[in-house]
């Protein structure tokens, strides 16, 4: 169907060109994000006010200001920041007096772990919901699945988080209310974060499944004696998963974004909570690194997902 089989060379070039373009776009978004966050964080107020005691003498304030480069015009501050950042120096945390990059990098695995767990939770629900509601369209399972998914979409994630804590930590006392350390700890934050996209993902799987079940190749499978079970869960599912996989990067990004709030609710020691705290203490270097790293994650996760299509859809496998 696509020229991939017939013209491997040309197709290879097309793919390479596409990726170069995507990488370039990614770099532009990262620079854009760094500019936006640099200026916006400075609108939140003067960090000196929080760093020094209120009764500090004006001379001291002026001296610290000078040392931190806060007297320069903002655009000049940005250029200094960007120049150093390119060399890997993101400055020291005002508050902790430690390199901001290290502070944030320390927290990165926890955030990625949480986002992945949330994503896994949403897919684990959305795929069976989507498949079953397509196979039994209009049935009770279709309606219930839709209802459950919509509920997740209707409630903000911090609210879901608080509700879960109330039920499972306080009333039933079966799950820890906050912190890390075990699989049980990640359960509630992952649900709070991952419930939201279930509705959209279910819709994607359901409508793709409806199309696929109507296709000639599925009919051909039936014509040679396939059982419904094999047809749906082996053959149709892989086709129906393609549109979901294509936008998984977007959902991962959304999970990273949502993590900022959920991490705070569950005292999850990730980038999100660190950045939120840094915002409150006007710890600009930490905010900047945090947001920058998150946007780099956004961009790479999208690229990785692009690369991964080839694994499920051989028509766009890149080596031929």
């Amino acid at each position, binding site marked *: *169907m696509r020229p991939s089989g017939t013209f491997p060379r040309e197709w290879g070039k097309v793919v390479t060109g596409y990726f170069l373009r995507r990488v370039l776009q990614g770099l532009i978004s990262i620079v854009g994000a760094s500019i936006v966050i640099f200026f916006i964080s400075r609108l939140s107020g003067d960090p000196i006010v929080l760093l020094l005691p209120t009764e500090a003498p004006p001379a001291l304030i002026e001296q610290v200001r000078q040392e931190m480069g806060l007297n320069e015009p903002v655009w000049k501050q940005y250029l200094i920041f960007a120049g150093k950042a390119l060399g890997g120096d993101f400055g020291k945390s005002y508050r902790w007096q430690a390199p901001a990059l290290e502070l944030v990098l320390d927290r990165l695995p926890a955030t990625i772990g949480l986002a992945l767990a949330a994503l896994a939770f949403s897919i684990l629900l959305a795929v069976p919901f989507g498949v079953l509601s397509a196979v039994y369209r209009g049935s009770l399972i279709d309606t219930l699945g839709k209802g459950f998914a919509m509920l997740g979409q209707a409630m903000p994630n911090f609210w879901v988080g608080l509700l879960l804590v109330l039920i499972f930590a306080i009333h039933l006392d079966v799950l820890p209310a906050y912190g890390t350390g075990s699989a049980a700890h990640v359960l509630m934050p992952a649900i709070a974060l991952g419930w939201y996209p279930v509705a959209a993902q279910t819709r994607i799987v359901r409508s793709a499944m409806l199309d696929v079940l109507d296709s000639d190749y599925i009919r051909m499978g039936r014509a*040679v004696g396939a059982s419904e079970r094999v047809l749906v869960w082996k053959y149709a599912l892989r086709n129906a998963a393609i549109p979901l996989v294509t936008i998984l990067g977007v959902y991962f990004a959304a999970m990273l974004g949502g993590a900022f709030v959920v991490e705070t609710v569950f005292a999850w020691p990730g980038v999100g909570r660190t950045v939120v705290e840094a915002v409150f203490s006007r710890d600009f270097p930490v905010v900047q690194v945090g947001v920058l790293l998150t946007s780099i994650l956004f961009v790479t996760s999208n690229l990785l997902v692009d690369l991964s299509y080839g694994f499920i859809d051989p028509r766009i496998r890149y080596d031929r």
Partner: protein
Amino acid sequence: MSRQALLRVENLRTHLFLKRGVLKAVDGVSLHVDEGETLGLVGESGSGKSMTSLSIMRLLPKQSGRIVDGNVWLDGTDLTSLPEDEMARDWRGRRVSMVSQDPMTSLNPVFTVGDQVGAPFRYHKLAQGARAVRDAVVKVLSRVRIPSPEKRLDNYPHQFSGGMRQRVVSAMAIACAPRLLIADEPTSNLDVTIQVQMIELFRELQRDSGLGIILITHDLGVAASICDRIAVMYAGRIVEVGDVRTMYRAAAHPYTQALLNSIPHLGQRKRRLYAIAGQPPSLIDPPVGCRFAPRCPRRTAKCDADYPPQVELAPGHVTACWHPGPGAVA
């Protein structure tokens, strides 16, 4: 006539329950196919050929399609009365199989050809274990003349040309040596040389195995080159059946004659298949009389009043027309 037919379809009625009404896609079709025989089912697009074959396979659109009357006897079993799981387990792919018209969309793009052609062997437990299935697949792919099949097993459908893909689909269909193969316009999306090759292939398969074939086509030329008998379908009904020679020399129904006249003659470039003036009637609200009447040059008052009964003009040559006979329709 003493032979027991392989397939006997009796008075089949299939309705599609649509929002705009009940569409009588197949409206009282009877036909039979003997062992080793090829029956051509010919008619304009929309006449109900595919719905007839899907009824036999019991693969009608789930939401809307239903067989409302009639029987489909295959090897002495009425397929219309079988539960769905039995139909899948013992019949589809095993005794009756299907090749549909589009080789580009009949194969799953994300599974290898080896996996897909191997599927019927696994479903019907005719080969156990990966090794045995692989061997069986290689064998059936070479039967349909795929060059170096053992190298192509792990390829995906998009790596095959249209003609080769249709061979793969055929391999899938005949993998478990069915008794009846329904080929729904298997060549209409292929170019002429490949059409010829496909037809040769079907002939070969038949010679080896006594396979009965229903070849659905709107191309009388293709039908003539491969079929033993031809059934002409119009607006959900069979209007004339006979062996190929009779249909060519002594077609008695005005619609068959019109179809024959639209075959391009030697030296004549233009195809005139769609040159029969007028439109087929609505199948939701079909006329009571002859369905071809509005387009028929021999139409009389009787034609409008009542549907014509079947008349046997010669042994095996049957038509439904009030005024059958040779006629200059062109």
